[in-house]
């Protein structure tokens, strides 16, 4: 399942909606991110024009916030925690297992756009270390077998559809 072609008309109307709210760049970017699941790099120039900013400034804001992405992401975004508590509890090998299972490296998205793998510095659930998130769901006290079964669930979901 490839991400859809960008609907430029739709992008333009999102930008138009925010045009009069000069200096409110972040809500506009959020709106684009919501609409497309990411911020298409080609939209930077039009956003800059509407907000009366330099395109380089817009890119700076997008790339600063982890919540924005310039790359299309998979249906499921995995965030493996690499914070101290999780590290002590072996999060490095958890990450390896995930990488091996999905066949992608940290930061990448699988070719079928099912999974994106990211790392974070702490999920704020250290008592459950090692932890990871899939979209909005938390998983704690992970072990390699637990990881494999969680991933299998999400894969199954794909096959069912």
């Amino acid at each position, binding site marked *: 399942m490839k991400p859809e072609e960008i609907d430029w008309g739709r992008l333009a109307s999102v930008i138009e909606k925010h045009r009069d709210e000069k200096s409110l760049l972040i809500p506009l970017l959020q709106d684009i991110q919501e609409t497309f699941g990411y911020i298409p790099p080609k939209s*930077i120039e039009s956003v800059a024009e509407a907000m009366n900013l*330099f*395109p*380089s*400034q817009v*890119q*700076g804001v997008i*790339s600063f916030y982890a919540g924005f992405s310039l790359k299309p992401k998979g249906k499921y975004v995995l965030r493996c925690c690499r914070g101290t508590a999780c590290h002590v509890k072996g999060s490095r090998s958890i990450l390896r297992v995930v990488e091996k299972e999905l066949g992608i490296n940290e930061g990448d998205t699988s070719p079928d756009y099912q999974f994106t793998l990211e790392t974070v510095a702490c999920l704020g659930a250290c008592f459950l270390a090692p932890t990871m998130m899939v979209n909005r769901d938390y998983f704690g006290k992970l072990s390699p077998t637990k990881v494999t079964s969680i991933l299998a669930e999400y894969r199954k979901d794909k096959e069912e559809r």
Partner: protein
Amino acid sequence: MEDITLTINGKKISCQEGTSILNVAEEYGIKIPTLCHHHDLEPFGACRLCLVEEEKTGRLMASCVAPVAQDMTILTDSPRITKHRRNIVRLMMAEHPESCLVCSKGNRCQLRQIAAQLGVGETDLYPMPNYKRLEQANPFIIRDLSKCILCGKCIRADHELVVVGAIDYNLRGFRSRPATVHDLPLKDSSCTFCGTCVSMCPTGALASKNTQYVGTPEREGLSVCGFCGVGCSLTMGVAGEQVIEVNPSHRQDTVNGATLCVRGHFAHDFLNAGERLIRPMIRKDGELISASWDEALEIVADRLLNIKRTSGPQSVALLGSSKCTNEENYLFQKIARVLLGTNNIDNGGYSSGQRLLRLIDEKTDGGCRIHPLEQLEKAEAIFVLGANPDQSAPVVGYYLKRASRKGVTLIVADPRQTELADFASVWLSLLPQSDLELINGISALLYQKKAYDPSFIDRFTEGFGEYGDGLSSLDLERVTGVTGLDLDILEETAGLLNGKKIAFVIGHGILQQRYGMQSIEALFNLSLMTGSLGHAGAGIYGLARENNQIGAWDMGTAPHALPGRQPLNDVLNGDTARRGWERAWQAKLLPDQGSNVVRMIEEAEKGNLKALYILGENPLRSLPQPERVRKALESVDFVVVQDIFPTETAEIADVIMPGAAFSEKGGSITNMEGRIQTFRPVTSPPGEAKPDWEILFLLAAKMGYTGGNDSLEKIRAEIAELVPMYAELDGQRDVAWVKETSQRKLFDPGGKGGMIPFSSVVSTGDEVYDDIYPFTAILGSVRYHLGSGTRTGYSDRIGELGLKGEIEISPEDGINSGLRNGDMVRVLSPHGSLERAIRLEKRLRKGLIFVPLAVNANDAMNLIGLTELCRPESPGWKTCRVKLEKL
């Protein structure tokens, strides 16, 4: 603001509230190390190196952003601070790559300097070099962001000073770096290669690319940019006798501050070109051969005097240089007038519309000669007409963009949607050559609204009644028809200008167009009506193409004017000016205006011109119809060329005398603001080349002149004494300003000069275009070249860029003519043709094409007619009708 007292390092200090601790300390000579601070940039507080300690509370503060407060006791150098500073530098150094050892910033790297001062050699930290891709795929800048310390100076310079916005921080944390959009190489971004960020960068992360030399220059010298009429102040780094690097000067009161443009920063490598002329040449049996100075000067003196004797002074003409110094131009016109008895003297500024600027000088009696660019940022409204300073005089563009960012109303009238148009409150996309109608239309709308300054008009002007009648009877429908603009947008513009004093910025779109004279008159009327003259931040700013175009005119290198813009012929006032010069020079001067450069060519064609002496100009490349000019000059018996390059014109000369470039001699030049900058040599001239003033003096001596002028100081002293406008050029200061001497009431309340008259409202004629030539070609500058591109053409780095000067056409016309990007076309006008590739440009409107100047030996000049004048002396060289043929 309140005054505050505080103590810094035990010293009691009083200063204004709101100042930063750093600024106050600097003012009192206390040095605090900084890396991210620059006095022209907004304080940022990124590097924390400027830490100071408040003794009472023990608080540590970044002094560049911390404001002073009452009763603070600040220490700038305690052991605690030093410890922290060392730690900051240790961390920076731990992240730095080993290539630091061979960095071309060398000993000028501020990080290295500070590390040395703090004694940080070993960091004792785990080295963690932050390797980034090295970028050098452009001729100008090397980006090695491994060495970046994230001080943000480049970004702030790019946003705040030159307002380009090519770069900003990208990403976060360890990965964060300044980047272009989509992280493209600079050459594919909006970067203009102005190099401002390079000069600003405290480390080797940004460095200028120099293929000739790597390392720290041996010495530095102060000079002035050799290109456009802004006259940026700069520092040249020298190794041996080669200028290897150029940066904005460190002086603080300069026109350019910390900025330059790509020409000033990088194109000065033409100075080192192997093609430079290094010895005199004379033509023997049709061949140019080397000769001694004595021989060459002897021939020139003899032949000129001989021709004067046998064919009369009218058969001799001299073309002075808008790139040579004031002193040289003064001497040159003196040779013409005193030794050769002719007023046939002009300079290259003619083609940039000097005659039109003269109109303003005449109307105000010299009351409007000073136009400080810095006042533009404080203007009430700016109206830019026919000017694209972003390309032609970039530093002016920076001023305008900064003004717009600060909220100054900016109106841009240009047939093309220039970069500046994007910064404008209103962009008026008028049809070419319709500025006159536009100005009339806006004046009429303002008049209708009674939006004029009655007290100004009453006190200082006359003829407003008739002018008003003229405006009332103006046919606004015709205005909209001729300009192609709706009444709505004209109303909007008038609304924005209502009640404001206006700064007009005019460029070659006005100065070189057929209705240039009338447009200037109309603008002048509008500025009188709105009370915009004689007011800071308002008035008429004319762009000057060459760095000493204004000075050449001021020095009398013009067919109509004596030094100090004094009239040759002024019977009403008993010819006092000319009589004065006759006494001073002990010579009889002719009252009749001489030939301008176009007349010189025409006289040559008629066989009336026997001798032509060309100083630092290349008419075979800079004038229209080069083939016609070549034929004309070839028919002149004796042609002398004094230049630094074997130009197209030098090739047909009978004698070539090698002069020195500006950086190789002393002198002064006057910029478009009226600022006179004096400079000293930075290197010596190559080979046997000599400073031009010296050549001129030696020649004058050979011609029997005994009146002194044998040193720069003496020439300068004579100018300061005899030219009231240049009284400040007294050798005492490096920067002086011209004097405004007007006695008109506006400028001198007790003066005898009276009121300034309005002139009557005139309109453009009706243009009838024939279908054979369906397009209007606009000829214009590109920022990488100046003028006809002779000097910039000898710059290796500009050459490496490989500009092809693609003809721009609107996508609509492109498609209709079956043209795609990259197709070759022949452009034909009634005068000639050229061949280039085409580029579809959506910023161009239908019916227009844009032809960049200076590339391909400036073949754009083939298209226009040399003698296409609407009213005398207004060169109609900006546009012409053309057709396209696909090749």
